[in-house]
């Protein structure tokens, strides 16, 4: 039951995030990434342009702007959504830290999951091969495996 709940929470997050995937540019995604949605007249209008509606989750390969193009552009939501958003944007750094069994992204994930970072670090390194079973692992799979592990 818990697992189903998790899955649906994550899936909701995926929908919210992936509909806003966009290309990298140095100013973020322009007005679309502003935190002040709905307050000023221009913004909803521009949002319609910046959201290109691509569906699908982030796979391995550094990008930025996934979160920057989220209409909220902020760290938000419950554990599952926050973890997914984090891993979508930091999968390469997380993989690096996971292989070493320590690092900033593991500390961050431990914080999001509210678990002890050292215990988590060991578990993650031990299960590196499980977490990154395939070279084409995507952020949703990774999020689910980490939540099960932790």
């Amino acid at each position: 039951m818990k697992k189903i709940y998790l899955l649906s929470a994550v899936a909701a997050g995926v929908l919210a995030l992936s509909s806003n995937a966009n290309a990298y540019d140095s100013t973020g995604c322009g007005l679309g990434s502003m935190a002040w949605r709905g307050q000023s007249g221009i913004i909803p209008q521009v949002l319609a342009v910046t959201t290109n509606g691509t569906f699908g989750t982030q796979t391995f390969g550094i990008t930025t702007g996934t979160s920057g193009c989220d209409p909220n552009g902020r760290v938000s939501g419950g554990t599952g959504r926050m973890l997914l958003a984090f891993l979508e944007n930091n999968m390469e750094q997380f993989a690096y830290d996971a292989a070493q069994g320590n690092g900033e992204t593991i500390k961050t994930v431990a914080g999001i999951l509210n678990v002890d970072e050292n215990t988590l670090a060991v578990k993650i390194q031990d299960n590196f091969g499980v977490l990154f079973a395939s070279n084409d692992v995507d952020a949703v799979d990774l999020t689910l495996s980490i939540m099960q592990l932790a």
Partner: protein
Amino acid sequence: MHYLLFFITLFFPFFVVAAEVDEAWLALGHYQNGESSIDSPNFFLSEDGKTNPLAELQATIELFEGNDTTKQCVFPARYLYLQKRGLVQKAFPKCEEYDQFKADLQPKDVTLLFTDAYMNNPSSMFGHTLLRIDTKRKGTQMLAHGANYGAFTGEEAGAAYAIKGLFGLYFGGFTVKPYYDIINTYNNIENRDIWELTLNFSQEELDFMVAHLWEIGQTQSRYYFFSRNCSYMLLEMIDAVRPELKLAQKFKTWVIPLDSFKAVARKKGLVKEINYRPSRQNKIKHRYKMMTDEQREIYRQAIKAKDYHLSDELSMAQKADVWETAYQFVQYQWVAKKLELKDYRKQSFEVLRARSGFKDKGSIAELSDGKNPIQAHESKRLVAGGGERNGEVFEKIELRPAYQSLTDNDYGLIKGAQINFLNQEWRHYAERNKLVMHKFDVLSIRSISPIDVMFRPTSFQLDLNVERWQNPSDEREHYVGNFMVGGGGAFDLGENVRFFALVNNRLGYGGGIAHNSYGALGVDLGALWSWHSWRVLFEIEPQIATQKNFSQIKYNGEINYIIAKDWSIALSGEFVDTKGKNAQEYSLGLRYYF
């Protein structure tokens, strides 16, 4: 009549109190010399609020006496301002979006970030500053938020972009993003270091900053590249929280991001912590430098062959170093578009699967310390000195508003990078008692960046100037307007010497030659030597030109001795070997940075 008088005496004192416009109110409304820097009409409640802070204050008091909660929710910092002064009775309304904003940010501190120069983008050459709202969330500051003030530019590039930027045709505003996104952009994609300066704000000041960010986040203002830019707006933001700082006032004509960062760092009691976050490229370079010769050899072979089965000559910890560095290098190549996605993933995981089998840490500690840009020399430069040109003695004065030349002290700045902006040199020739402008650099950019085992940057330069030049046939001096672009490569020999070779294309106008114009192609060979307080530059540039007078070989050299952070003494010399009369000069100058 009596009633009226009664009302006036009853309410008048209240309005007198309310009507007092203080320093804090002016800072909160971003008023500078009687006008607000904010351009969005929605920031003003009073019709003439942009130029009338008093009317705006009265309108704000009225707003919070009324029932328009939607509008009240836009101005939480103004509410805090009024509340502190007893000018508001009602409670601040419940504001769903603002509450969510605070709930997401979970503010703990405010940090000013400086990202160092990025020579590949003209608008980033002077670095960049942005704010970070640190978070109380469990984990790390990766979950904090960056608040970036920037211009909302369209697709246009080149001239249109520059002109729009210079003349305020773009609008600027704030965007908020998770800090991990900022790290990716600057550290991992653009390979720029980030310096984090955490401000010493009280809880009250922190709350005020967040509230004010919410207010300003809903506005836009005209964006000017040199004056009202990313850094300027952040100074006004900090002033709004602590009005007595008056940071923005000092930057009336232009704001260089590093100057603003230094200004904040130097305010007494404003900073509590500084932290360095190196770029990916600097991390890789550091690791490579720290490796043993054996590790380096094995590492080079591995990245070349793309085979990460390492020789057992290395200990496990040493192998871990090699794998970790190799992984970062693979990431770098992917970002630099030098790898296909499939190959990139294959290599990434090969390295990491090997690394994950080893439980302990590698032997190399991560790069944790850099050359603090706050300690870099000041960006304006004055040179006073004298010399001799073609047998004539002169005194000289040079003034450069910004920023750095190849032989200036590069501590805290990028070695091999030069941006001379609006540099002018005036000379007085004693014998003839003649004052002339010898040279005016509109812009001189050089990026001399070394190629090594891993990185292959292009070196380039660009010059736009007007200079006095001696025509070899009639030996008279004339002004020449020059435009030059060049590209090539550089490499380091050891820690101290950098060689470079660039091919330059020149177009010029003037010079007292037939048709007044010329085109030229030159090969610029140079060496830059840095050793303790010495910076020595030597260059030879043979060039062929459409006008025989410009077909020449130019030799020039500069020796600069750094006396202190803001003082140095430089000897420069130039010899131009032409088909007619040669030109030569040397001079000595005291450089002062301020």
